[in-house]
Each structure stands twice: as C-alpha cells, then as structure tokens.
C-alpha cells in the first residue's frame, strides 16, 4: 500500500517537473506585451534608461548620415565621369565632322 502511494507520488513529481518549463513558457507567451496604439510623451528620462539607449540612438543616426553621404558621393562621381565622357566624345565628333 505504502509502496503504491509512494509510486503515485513519484509519478506526480516527475510529471510536474517535466511539464514545469512548458507551463512557464506558455505563461510567458501569454504575457507578451500588447502592440502600442499611441505614443505618450514624458518630460524626465529615468537615469538607468540613458546609457544603453544612447549607443543605439547614436549608431542609428550615424548610420543614416554616413550611408546618405556615401550614396551622394557615389552618384556624384558616376555622374561626373559620364558627363566628362559625353563632352569628350561630342568634342571628338565635332572635330571629325569639321575635318
């Protein structure tokens, strides 16, 4: 009798310990934050918020500025090269037609 009860208790403990992580993950999934439908402004930023966010903000702004600058440079260089070649060829054509 005692052996049977202790066997049931062992099975119960085993079942709970196996299903524990599953229950925790289900609970975590259920507590997923709801999507925002509006932004609310605050005047003061908590001090612990500042440093990690600052690196991300600076990275984002730097990336946008650097990429836009590089793109402008590449387009300007390509445009200048093509325009020079057009002018050179047009001058050659004029010279050939005169001769």
């Amino acid at each position, binding site marked *: 009798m005692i052996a049977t009860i202790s066997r049931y208790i062992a099975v119960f403990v085993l079942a709970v310990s196996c299903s524990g992580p599953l229950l925790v993950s289900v609970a975590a999934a259920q507590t997923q934050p709801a*999507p925002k*439908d509006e932004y609310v402004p*605050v005047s003061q930023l908590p001090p612990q918020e500042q440093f990690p*966010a600052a690196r991300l*903000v600076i990275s984002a702004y730097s990336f946008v500025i650097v990429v836009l600058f590089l793109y402008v440079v590449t387009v300007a260089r390509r445009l200048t090269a093509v325009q020079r*070649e057009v002018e050179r060829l047009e001058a050659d*054509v004029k010279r050939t037609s005169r001769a």
Partner: protein
Amino acid sequence: MPKWFFPAAVLWAVMFAATPVVIAYAPFEKDMGLVFKIFFYHMPSAWMFLLGGILCGVASLRYLISNEARHDRTALAAAELTVLFGLLTLVTGPLWARKSWGTWWVWDVRVTASLVSWMIAVSYLILRRYGGPGAEKLAAGLALFGMANVPFIYISVNYWRTIHPMTSVVPKLPVSMGMPLWFCVATFLLTFTLLFKMRVRLEEQRTRLDAIYLSLDT
C-alpha cells in the same frame, strides 16, 4: 541639372543639419525613453522606402505599356533609392527594437514583408546589372510585385497580432512629437527628391553616351 536643384540642395543641407536639434526638443516616450528618438529617422526612411517601391512599380508599369525608355530610367532610379532607404529602415529598426522589444529582430509580418520588398528591389538591380538583353522587361515585371507588397506592409500591423506599433500611432502623436516628425518627413522627402533627380540625370547621360557611341559605330 534644373535651376531649382541647387537652391533645393542648400535648403536640404540646412534642414538636414537642423534635424538633430529639432529631435532633441521632442519629448521622450513614456515606455521607450531615449531610444524612441530613433523613430524620427526610422519612420521617414520607411516612408521613402515605400514611396520608392510605388514609384518603381508605377514607372515599370508605364514602361511595359508604352515601351518608352524614360519610364525605364525612372524605374531604375527609384529601385536604387528603394534599396537605399530600405537599408536605412532595416538597420535603424533593429537598433530601436533591441531596446524597446528586447531583441534585434522578430519575424513579425511588417518586418518580414519589408525585408521581402527590399530583397525584390535588390533583385531588380541585380537583374538590370547582369540580366543581359531584355532584362528591362523582366525587371519591370519584378517591380510590379515589389509595388504590390507596399500596401500589405503598411496595413499588416492592423490585421495581424504583432508587437510592431500600429498605424494609429502617427495620427495620435501629440504636437510636441508630431512637429519634429513632420519636419523629418519633409527633410527625407527633399532628400529623396534630390537623389532621385540626380539618379535620373545619370541614366539620361548614360543613354546619351550610348547614342553617341552608336552614332560613331555607324
């Protein structure tokens, strides 16, 4: 370049330099704090990304119908800007998400659809570069799929369960946040317009160059 280009470029330089100052005056968001400031560059980039996709699709459709080369040049310029602004969106988004969502990336509907749209624009450019003769028509067909994805990207957050903010956040913004946002949108729109004009001009010059070489051969 047209007469308006250089005054517009000066105006753009002043506006772009002013954006960090304008954004600094915007308040922090209650839950996100400082990292929310990425929003002021992320969202205008995303809108220009979608605008590029629409412009490329419309120009491609007109090219397929009329077979006029100027529409093809417009589509090519718009595709390159779609890749550029898509890259800005897809990099600034994860930098924002790391702090506000606790992860760099989620396979959320809007994020995934944006990545797909960006890859379509990259495919368009690869096809134009290495596709050989007739690639213009194939690329134009591809651009139509890119354009079809744009409304899906925009409305997806309202129909799917996702942690991405809904489209209602922008109309509900208080004036203190809305003014800096619209200033940044205007600056990015001017950036897009100037880059687009430069890129179209480049394609026009290339066409002119090809015509000269062709006349020299004959």
